[in-house]
């Protein structure tokens, strides 16, 4: 049985099923509220959800059973007395060490929990990073949307911030440095300022489970691969119909694999030609192949947001899932070879995570 936690504009939906047929909606929580992200921590079984009420502000909630009682996590705020307020939590990620959970938010803030998500604290080094005043928000705000721990090494972490680029730490978040060498921002002038001064609109980062020095990136106009833990980047978008998009998924069993969903361009953020296709590489980006058998082939102009694609399993039994702002959710039980409808009429999908 596969479980999907689907964060939507109107609440959290829990879907359960087997690949090949529509899933059942087994629970709904936070009805009417935007649920930006939800995930089940595989270590504890606890479900965490970020919810931003338009009235009462962003909160993180946790529960053992998403159909049961939820508790509000403490400490989900910027340092008191400053001139900024937390706008939104974009992502929740289990850390490499027991009990560690990270939350990424707007304005470019990393929160850390050491008790599985019951209490959080702001990472002060990133919050007080010199030069932060020059960070520019993307269209969705100054969002820290990607957090990629290094399996087995809690001190190493990479972050993606739109539009402040990639940030790396080797000391557990005590200090941070940029990791942007090789990234080309076409939306900047031909002679942009130095790399540490420009607005780099990273859309998504995913790290290989077996080769953690390898990270894939979907950029705002570009798809990149790093083989040195995020220090330098190589463009691997050749062969895609468009290098603009948001989500990424990887096969945990294959460090050369990646899946992206190209959209037309930043000025037209829909699937090209009304044809929904996921693109797969199995050679680290040297070539890409469309995977669309079972996906809509005409009049389908979908937008898939950065947090709305995930996978479970590996290898030939890799399952892939993604949701669109149309409210449709699609899945594949055979690593993208064929696809099926998981759900058709949910509210706009903001995020999707899968577990089994």
């Amino acid at each position: 049985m596969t479980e999907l936690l689907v964060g939507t504009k109107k609440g959290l939906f829990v879907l359960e099923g087997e690949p090949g047929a529509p899933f059942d909606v087994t629970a709904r929580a936070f009805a009417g509220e935007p649920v930006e992200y939800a995930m089940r921590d595989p270590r504890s079984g606890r479900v965490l959800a970020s919810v931003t009420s338009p009235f009462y502000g962003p909160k993180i909630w946790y529960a053992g059973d998403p159909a049961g009682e939820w508790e509000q996590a403490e400490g989900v705020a910027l340092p008191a007395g400053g001139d900024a307020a937390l706008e939104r939590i974009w992502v929740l990620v289990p850390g490499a060490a027991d009990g560690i959970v990270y939350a990424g938010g707007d304005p470019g803030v990393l929160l850390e929990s050491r008790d599985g998500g019951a209490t959080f604290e702001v990472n002060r080094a990133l919050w007080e990073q010199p030069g932060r005043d020059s960070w520019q928000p993307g269209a969705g705000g100054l969002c820290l949307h990607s957090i990629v721990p290094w399996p087995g090494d809690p001190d190493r972490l990479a972050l993606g911030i739109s539009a402040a680029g990639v940030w790396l730490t080797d000391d557990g978040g005590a200090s941070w440095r940029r990791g942007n060498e090789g990234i080309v921002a076409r939306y900047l002038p031909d002679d942009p300022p130095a790399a540490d001064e420009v607005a780099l609109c990273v859309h998504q980062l995913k790290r290989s489970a077996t080769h953690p020095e390898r990270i894939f990136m979907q950029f705002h106009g570009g798809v990149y691969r790093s083989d040195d833990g995020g220090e330098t980047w190589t463009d691997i978008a050749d062969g895609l119909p468009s290098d603009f998009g948001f989500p990424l998924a990887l096969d945990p069993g294959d460090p050369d694999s990646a899946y992206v969903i190209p959209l037309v361009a930043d000025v037209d953020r829909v699937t090209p030609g009304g044809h929904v296709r996921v693109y797969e590489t199995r050679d680290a980006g040297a070539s890409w192949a469309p995977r669309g058998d079972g996906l809509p082939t005409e009049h389908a102009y979908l937008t898939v947001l950065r947090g709305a694609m995930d996978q479970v399993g590996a290898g030939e039994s890799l399952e892939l899932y993604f949701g669109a702002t149309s409210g449709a959710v699609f899945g594949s039980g055979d690593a993208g070879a064929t696809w099926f409808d998981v759900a058709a009429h949910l509210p706009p999908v903001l995020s999707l995570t899968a577990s089994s």
Partner: protein
Amino acid sequence: MPLVRLRGPLKQLAGDSAEHAVEGGSVGELLRELERAHPSTSGWILDERGALRRHINVFVNGELGAQETPVGPDDRIDVLPALSGGR
């Protein structure tokens, strides 16, 4: 003492009680005192800057107020989510 009236989730967070007699000379002082008395409400009405959240309205005796609006011992303060539409 001024009376702060809450509804919905704010009422639940404040001990499931709709009416709270709270000390203070302004709306902001009342709301901060309410947070001290009911810590579960912290961050729901005022953000971490101490500012009234953008889509929360406060009415003093039926008139729209603000954080600095003075209040007297016989005043009634309603804390309400703003009327919103289009989303």
